[in-house]
């Protein structure tokens, strides 16, 4: 009875048996009453996180929106010149810049290849893990966990070394492959990072290597919730593995696949660290994706923060549109009770 009344916030603070409450100084007591009467406790608890997130995530996003309509460069940072509003000037500069279109094309093409590849590889490994015996499954998932756990910078540096023209493992293997597999001496000292296509081949393998474990583990978690009789009875009726997957597994796990698809698009469209390390910083402009291109405008001298913000805003808006889908899928799965 007492606890219900308290939760409703209607009852005055109970006098504690040991008189602890009345020992507090009057202003503190008054404040406590006030918090309780107005049911402010949850808002007070949220305050620190709301301030931190507001100042470092939400406000910078708004700032990007503001800066993208300004001519913001070094003079504005040092205070030598005032704010200059340029309307849609930055956006029209961007849209007429061929480098923007090539970086956008790279980002889109990269996601279009890596997302399905990661999903297919991850799902196959998840299905495999589900069928393996316990010890074998533990072995395979530990291996996958190691790839997943490797920090992006370590993994990127490692792949650059594996694909290095002097002493790298891949060029050495390719040199020794038989001719019908395109092996041979032309791989001698082949540089994988000097042009966009080979560089993004390396980044593709790198990102798939790092992200398939997450897909596999998530698919496996979904498979474990499925009653095994479903697939069993289909098998008895003569359905092959292909049919079982598309007729039974996929429809049941569709919400999970939806979330995984959206997360993968968000990550792969916005991939930064791996690209930055593999292409070796901001040197090769024809290897920029959208994120690196925006970053380059802000942090290569002379900085053009206005243009960079407009680019970053485009990237953010694209990702937010996909995020809306992700949030809706999560809410439908009951993420917010």
């Amino acid at each position, binding site marked *: 009875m*007492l*606890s219900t009344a*308290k939760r409703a916030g209607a009852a005055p603070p109970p006098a*504690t048996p040991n008189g602890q*409450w009345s020992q507090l100084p009057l202003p503190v007591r008054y404040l406590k009453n006030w918090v309780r009467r107005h049911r402010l406790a*949850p808002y007070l*608890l*949220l305050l620190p*996180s709301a301030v*931190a*997130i507001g100042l*470092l995530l939400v*406000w*910078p*996003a708004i700032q990007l929106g503001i800066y993208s309509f300004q001519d913001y460069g070094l003079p504005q940072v040092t205070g030598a010149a005032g704010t200059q509003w340029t309307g849609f000037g930055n956006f029209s500069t961007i849209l007429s810049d061929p480098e923007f279109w090539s970086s956008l094309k790279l980002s889109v093409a990269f996601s279009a290849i890596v997302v399905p590849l990661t999903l297919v590889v991850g799902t196959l*490994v998840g299905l*495999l893990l589900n069928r393996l*015996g316990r010890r*074998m499954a533990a*072995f*395979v998932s530990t*291996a996958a*966990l*190691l*790839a*997943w*756990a*490797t*920090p*992006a*910078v*370590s*993994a990127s*540096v490692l792949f650059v*070394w*594996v694909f*290095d023209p*002097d*002493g790298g493992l891949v060029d050495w293997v390719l040199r020794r492959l038989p001719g019908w597999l395109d092996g041979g001496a032309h791989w001698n000292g082949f540089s994988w990072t000097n042009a966009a296509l080979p560089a993004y081949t390396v980044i593709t393998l790198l990102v798939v290597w790092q*992200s398939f474990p*997450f897909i596999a*583990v998530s698919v*496996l*978690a979904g498979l474990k919730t499925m009653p095994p009789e479903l697939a069993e009875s289909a098998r008895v009726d003569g359905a092959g593995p292909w049919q079982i997957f598309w007729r039974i597994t996929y429809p049941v796990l569709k919400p*999970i696949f939806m979330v995984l698809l959206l*997360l993968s698009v*968000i990550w792969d469209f916005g991939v*930064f*660290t*791996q690209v930055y*390390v593999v292409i070796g910083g901001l040197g090769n402009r024809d290897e920029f994706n959208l994120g690196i291109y*925006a*970053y380059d405008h*802000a942090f290569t001298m002379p900085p053009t923060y206005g243009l*960079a*913000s407009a680019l970053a805003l485009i990237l953010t808006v694209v*990702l937010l549109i996909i*995020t*809306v889908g992700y949030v809706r899928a999560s809410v439908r799965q009951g993420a*917010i009770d």
Partner: protein
Amino acid sequence: MRSRRFRRAALNGGGVIVALVTLIPIFWMLSTAFKPSTEIYSLTPRLLPSHPTLGNFRAVIDGSVIGMPYWTFLRNSLVVTLASVAISSVIALLAAIAVARFRFRFRATYLIMLLIVQMLPQQALVIAIFLDFKGLNLLDSLVGLIVAYTAFALPVTIWMLRNFVATVPREVEEAAAIDGAGPVRVYWKILLPLVAPGLVATSVFAFIFAWNEFVFALTFLGTDTAKYTLPLYVQYFQQKGTVDWGATMAASTLFTIPVVAFFLIVQRRISSGLVAGAVKG
């Protein structure tokens, strides 16, 4: 009968292939780290070092490769990571109590806001945060990184902790309240010990995020090499004309080990929740 045995063998074979292909790069990192340079650049690379050496690790630790010892960067990384994990855990716990224990206006809004901001691209926001930090003198300082890492860890840690708080039965707290404990005491003495395992798990995720983070460190720390955190340090090897791959792989190994260890600790939690994905680089 035979077809079943055949299928089992095929599945196991598939498992072995997947595991080996996945392990090759990691194996190559370790193998290179223990090779003397004559073997690293040999015309026919060997899988295992024929004369294993600790020379690369020694060169990394006493700093003969880039002029500064490993300890400097380890210290920077530890300071930034531990501080941001500690602060974000406290803030996240408060917020988790609010969303798991109270019904109030904007509760659902707040939760959805967390889901959305979690997806904002760091490399976009970094432009505005850089300019803000410039005005606040937080560039080239570990404090700036701590502030940024704390805030960026929050959406995921709140989201995760919320589930842990929700699993603690409300009756335990109510019983304590009836016995005369004030709300602060209830949370401190009753709730905290019960959510401790969850707090450990979320701290590990915050740790991995801060330990691995690259974009902010790259942008905020500029050219002050002595402030570099480990990810920048590992990448710094590449900026020097000819790369010493033995030392790079040794540094990379030392940087990777703690993360892998933590991953193994939370292995079971990882497989049970989609939130795990938020730790991606």
